[in-house]
């Protein structure tokens, strides 16, 4: 195992280049004159880059005790990053109607996505791998109607094939190369194999020792343990879309364990130019992360507004207006009017090249 001190130097060296470029980009921006001097986001904490994941306690063991979470977790978006393919899904019905689709629908074991597209998956023979069907289901967009998760997952639509495909086929590598890091848990970056489907407790809480029952501060994200830089790192491992691991080149982090410093290996463009190209939903994440990672802002993190276990962001409506609200709301307006293009129905409109929409 590499010596810790050497590791720090190595990462500090690599991140230094990235950091210098970032500072240069930001210094040229006239808006940044009043900003405090940015700090090196990679300069704190540690990482597990290139190491095996620790033998963490799995979610099924956690839920044995945390029985208040289990009954609602099944419907939680973080749990449904991969979901079992139930026969009554409209996407599967559409696939069955597609040429050669019946067999493919029968082979499909899991589904990914809902609102913009649904992808079809089946288990590979290999450990921790899923095959992704090249064909996808695109639901009809109905921008005027607010829908819940269940309705979105079962909206009518049709099957699309990529332009260069004649017929649907199972792809063995796409999921591992692009999706696994954020739709499954503990992806070994060497073999790109995950250890469990969708997001296990480990993804956000890390390797929690048994002793957390006596001292809850040992559990990351407990009320006593919400260090802002750790929070934006662990949320950012998936929500900073467009970032890339320096060491693997993959669009997801290399062996990130909640509690680590994400930015020791994960490259993200925090420049104003970069942020200005993002849709509002992504932009507010980048802005808040940048505030914490580069400017040591500690008052607001993702958890200030979002409650993951209850799938709620209601708390953000009770907050006093701060700069980040301007991503979606017009500052100073009495009823917090939404900006043009951020209608109620499309407020979470997002794009992602990695995700294919």
């Amino acid at each position: 195992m590499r010596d810790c001190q050497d590791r720090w130097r190595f990462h500090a060296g690599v991140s230094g280049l990235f950091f210098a470029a970032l500072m240069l980009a930001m210094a040229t921006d006239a808006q940044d004159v009043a900003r405090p001097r940015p700090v090196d986001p990679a300069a704190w904490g540690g990482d597990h880059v290139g190491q095996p994941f620790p033998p963490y306690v799995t979610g099924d063991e956690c839920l044995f005790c945390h029985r208040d979470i289990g009954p609602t977790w099944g419907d939680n978006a973080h749990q449904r990053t991969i979901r079992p393919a139930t026969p009554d899904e409209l996407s599967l019905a559409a696939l069955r109607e597609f040429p050669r689709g019946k067999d493919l629908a029968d082979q499909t074991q899991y589904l990914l996505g809902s609102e913009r597209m649904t992808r079809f998956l089946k288990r590979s023979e290999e450990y921790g791998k899923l095959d992704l069907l090249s064909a996808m289901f695109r639901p009809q967009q109905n921008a005027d109607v607010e829908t819940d998760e269940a309705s979105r997952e079962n909206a009518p639509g049709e099957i699309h094939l990529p332009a260069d495909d004649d017929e649907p086929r199972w792809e063995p590598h796409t999921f591992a190369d692009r999706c696994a890091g954020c739709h499954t848990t503990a992806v070994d970056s060497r073999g790109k194999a995950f250890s469990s489907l969708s997001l296990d407790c480990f993804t956000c809480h890390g390797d929690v020792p048994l002793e957390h029952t006596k001292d809850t501060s040992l559990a990351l994200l407990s009320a006593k343990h919400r260090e802002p830089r750790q929070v934006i790192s662990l949320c950012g491992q998936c929500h900073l879309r467009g970032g890339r691991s320096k060491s693997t080149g993959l669009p997801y982090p290399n062996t990130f364990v909640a509690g680590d410093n994400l930015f020791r290996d994960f490259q993200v463009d925090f420049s104003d130019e970069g942020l200005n190209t993002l849709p509002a939903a992504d932009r507010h994440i980048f802005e808040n992360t940048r505030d914490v990672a580069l400017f040591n802002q500690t008052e607001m993190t993702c958890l200030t507004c979002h409650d993951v276990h209850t799938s709620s962001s209601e708390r953000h409506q009770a907050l006093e207006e701060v700069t980040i609200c301007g991503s979606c709301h017009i500052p100073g307006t009495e009823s917090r009017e939404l900006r043009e293009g951020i209608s109620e129905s499309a407020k979470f409109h997002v794009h992602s090249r990695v995700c294919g929409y």
Partner: protein
Amino acid sequence: MWIPKWQRDRQKGVDSPMPTQPVSNEEFLPRPQNKQQRQWEKLIGELAEEKSRKLNMPRRDFMRSSMGMATAFLASNMVYGPNWEVDAAETLDPAATEEKFPKGEYFVFDVQTHFTDGVAIGFRNAEFVRNMGFELEDNPDAYSFTNYVKEIFFDSDTSMAVISGVPGKEINKSLEGKVLEGRDRRGGILPSWLMSQRKNELNRLAGGQRALCQGNCAPNHYWDRASNAPDFPALFEQMEREVKKYGIDSWKWYCHTDPGRSGDGFRLDDEKMAYPFFEKSKELGLNVFSIHKGFASQSRTLGHFAHPGDVEKAALDHPDLTFIVYHSALKHGPGEPQFSEDGFFDPNSGDFAWHAELMQIKERNPGLDNVYPEIGSSFGLLAIAHPEMCQHLIAKNVKHYGSDHVIWGTDCLWWGSPQWVIDAMKRFQISDKLCEKFGYEKLTKQDKANIFGLNAAKIYGIDVNQQLQALPADALTRLKTAYLDDGGQRDNAAHGWVRDHA
């Protein structure tokens, strides 16, 4: 506004030895009491006031006595119907209860008891436990082995207990290849090595056999990622350790958990995963498999593996093995929102989710003799939350599997001392209405004796007569006597958070 339940109870003059409503764990808003729960609680308060005054004793002391317990059952009958065998005389005279339910009438052998490795896990403070009416501390001491001995053996009629496993796997070796021992093996909140250690301590202390223990090892605990299959050498090594070194008496399986990070759960009828385990276990001379089924929300993605559908083939293919189906495959507990959803319970058939499938297995295979429904948590929690469902649970288990196949378990000390569950079973009866409508039989004393302990004794090869002769003289009984003589008793203070206006 939320207030502690004990505080509200004190304000309202309620001090119930039985839970009268579900309460919140502070993460969600507590559900208000329904009309029946309010009625029940009010009646308990009124009756207790009246009777304790008549006896000239403090009400709190009254509620801690057998008279208080009888009062709670009586009030329940007045609200929910005649579900419990209780006479008004028992609310004023402990002798009436003693006469009706003589001490030692039943040999109580609880196959589902737990403690932890010194960690508090929140159960004794959980949503539907908060209103248990007992002084349920939720700290490491409350979950300790010491308190386990007190609550299981001193505070209740339990004579024998199986220390029952929970999800978790031991690590065989360090990264350097050194075989680990004791705490270094980890294994979760109640690892196999600890169950074994405490079983031996308890039996040594008693000077006889009071405790048995289970082993947590299961087919998906050691996984070979290269072949994407069980790592049988590592698995068999652990099995041998648990049987030969730990002296376990049964396996405890959670098919819907994946502590080995295999990527999936497993089915009992999986010929590639479970069957090699069965064969190895037979070779080691251990034939009892205790399987958690039901309570599916305890898994993040693998809850479907808690369905009992895989019991049938496994049991038919292995008539020489015994399969104890824990929780009788009750899919959702009363504390879960799905419990109240349409389709979970059908009052017209008395069927409820997953338990019905367990019953159908026996219907399809009348000759199947090696499957035993166990009633830990299912009976106790339904007794409180849904007495009618509780009757269907027991009546159907007995109707389909026979009273000689229903196994007593309580899941305590998760829910405090099991005495309240024991009292509930003593007083439990199937109503005339349900017997008539569904063709159930009334439970006889012999049925209850079977359920309370004779069935489990048969499975584990315990000579009950010999035990009954040995128990009065063993050290644990002497300690219990001294504890009771010293005024030791269960606590009944209610905890939890409810709406102050509920």
